[in-house]
């Protein structure tokens, strides 16, 4: 973990919105509405830091990943990478930047081309970018295979010859080969067995130390995210409901959704079985017609009238711990002094 530096963050996301139109008909296209995948979120990731993004399916976390790497164009709002506003850049203009922004995907089976050798998969970013000679590239690939814990001799093998964990290492080698600064890892361990997950999490941490990488780490497993992150953002239906230093999230959850999420994670401790669990009722609502005001209110046990009428702003509760809730938990004085409020 690095101290928060005074230099400007590597990634700044401000008021980011992404809506996907719902259409019907082939010739006469009619717009039926929008999926509000990401709705006005702001966050920062400092150099060499890890920001963890957790949320359930449909919370918009993967859309955030695709917006930050500009695989998608935002409907509105800004993505500022290293001081440059890249939110409207064209594909052509983005291309040189791609070597600095790399992604590791969830499914190591679907994300590696089965008909190409490991060498050509890992070296692909270099050849696409036109970096180095063929021999240079081959040397670099062999070197990186060793870095991620594989063998240089694996160069001429095919993906099907490897296990899930090894394939994920291949995916990581491919992401690292252009010496990126930011790696977006979208559920990088969810498809792996428990014993292998730990190997990959340790590898990602080691690589961060070695290459000074900045991570945007996305997962639905709160324990995994907390383990690798400096800061954790909790998403619910396209909104960030809580943003917290990783070690404070568990001891001091402020948003009721975070409380429920923490409580729902099964614990490997027999004595914990008796604990009072906060079970949420119902399913996450649709992001086509999200609930008005606070989106969590239909499932929240603390909800009152104000939650149904007024959307709570994301407010700083001290120590860089933000939450968007009218009835914050583990907070002594409320409402806070006006000057503490941000983003409202």
């Amino acid at each position, binding site marked *: 973990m690095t101290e928060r530096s005074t230099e400007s963050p590597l990634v700044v996301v401000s008021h980011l919105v992404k809506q996907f139109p719902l259409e019907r008909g082939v010739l006469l296209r009619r717009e039926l509405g929008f999926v509000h995948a990401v709705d006005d979120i702001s966050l920062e990731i400092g150099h060499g830091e890890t920001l963890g993004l957790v949320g359930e399916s449909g919370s918009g976390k993967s859309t955030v990943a695709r917006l930050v790497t500009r695989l998608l164009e935002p409907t509105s709002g800004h993505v500022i990478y290293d001081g440059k506003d890249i939110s409207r850049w064209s594909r052509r203009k983005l291309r040189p930047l791609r070597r600095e922004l790399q992604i590791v995907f969830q499914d190591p089976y679907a994300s590696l081309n089965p008909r190409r050798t490991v060498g050509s998969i890992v070296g692909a970013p270099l050849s696409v970018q036109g970096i180095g000679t063929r021999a240079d590239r081959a040397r670099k690939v062999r070197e990186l295979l060793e870095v991620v814990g594989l063998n240089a001799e694996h160069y001429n093998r095919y993906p099907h010859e490897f296990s899930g964990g090894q394939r994920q290492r291949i995916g990581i080698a491919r992401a690292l080969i252009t010496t990126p600064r930011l790696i977006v890892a979208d559920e990088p361990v969810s498809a792996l067995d428990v*014993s292998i997950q730990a190997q990959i999490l340790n590898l990602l941490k080691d690589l961060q130390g070695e290459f000074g990488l900045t991570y945007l780490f996305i997962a639905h497993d709160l324990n995994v995210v907390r383990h690798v992150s400096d800061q954790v953002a909790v998403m619910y239906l396209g909104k960030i409901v809580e943003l917290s230093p990783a070690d404070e999230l568990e001891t001091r959850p402020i948003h009721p959704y975070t409380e429920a999420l923490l409580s729902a994670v099964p614990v490997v401790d027999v004595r914990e079985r008796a604990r009072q669990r906060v079970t949420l009722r119902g399913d996450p609502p649709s992001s086509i017609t999200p609930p008005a005001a606070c989106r969590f209110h239909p499932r929240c046990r603390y909800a009152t009238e104000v939650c149904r009428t007024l959307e709570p702003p994301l407010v700083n509760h001290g120590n860089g711990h933000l939450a968007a809730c009218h009835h914050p938990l583990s907070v002594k004085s409320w409402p806070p002094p006006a000057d503490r409020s941000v983003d409202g």
Partner: protein
Amino acid sequence: MALLEIQDLRVRFATRDGIVNAVDGISLSVDRGRTLGIVGESGSGKSVTALTVMGLTRLPNATVEGRVLLDGLDLLTLPPDELRYVRGKRIAMIFQDPLSSLHPLYKVGWQVVEAIQAHEDVSERFARRRALEAFREVGIPSAAERIDSYPHELSGGMRQRVMIAMALVLDPEILIADEPTTALDVTVQAQILDLIRDLQEAHGTAVVLITHDLGVIAETADDVAVMYAGRVAERGDLETVIDEPEHPYTWGLLRSIPARGAASTERLVPIGGSPPSLIHVPSGCAFHPRCPHAFSMCPQWEPALRDSQPGHAVACHLPIPTRREIGHALRRQGASA
């Protein structure tokens, strides 16, 4: 006598690449009203065990040996029509992905009605009333409307509730749940696990819960079997296995999970290597290539599953005192973390 008793079960599949030893001599039992958790990674044989109990591995390329006794009745030798009666009526199963286990073109209520009528000679009206009751019991809101929904109109959690309703509507003695919550979000997972527990209490059903998640096991099971490469590595009641694990594989699993409350600077302790191929299972103890404590005996002889104390059986060559010592040391480490 236990309600369900699996004795020395072996399941092999002949494939183009060779013989797959999916289940390699396991013995387990479940009593009425108890929950047996089977935990293991992919390829450990836990699902094949469940499918074999249900008679769903009766395939041309499969060889099944051993005995599966339901109240003394051997399911493996049962003729197909009698097995069909047992399946669904006495033993029911729910699967990981409720979307692929429900027929997409039929209304969910009709599918439950069909299940009832397959086993009982009742009118459609009566069956429908039973289905509706079951929908209410599993907590499907506005059940009277949802009963006429198609699967795609329901959320993942609701679909799994429909599957549970279908499984329990005939009041089976055993419910086998194969990764029932793996495809669900964690808040919905908590709801479904609570539901299974409540229904078990109300009906006294025996539950076999198969999962890769030790956390799910710790929250729901009474007894645990840890499987590795088609064999049982460790078996016992929940508290003993979680609090005093003795098999190095169980230690490894427990240590690879990020602990609650642990600092993020702390390193995880993974198990090296990867799960073995079931075609070329390592000699002796199948876990030996990944085991930090392996010694000369391990690659040579397969360790038998032996009681290390009443109700706790472990398949490992390390002497019992050594295992206890290491197990306690790990536990202290975990507690201080």
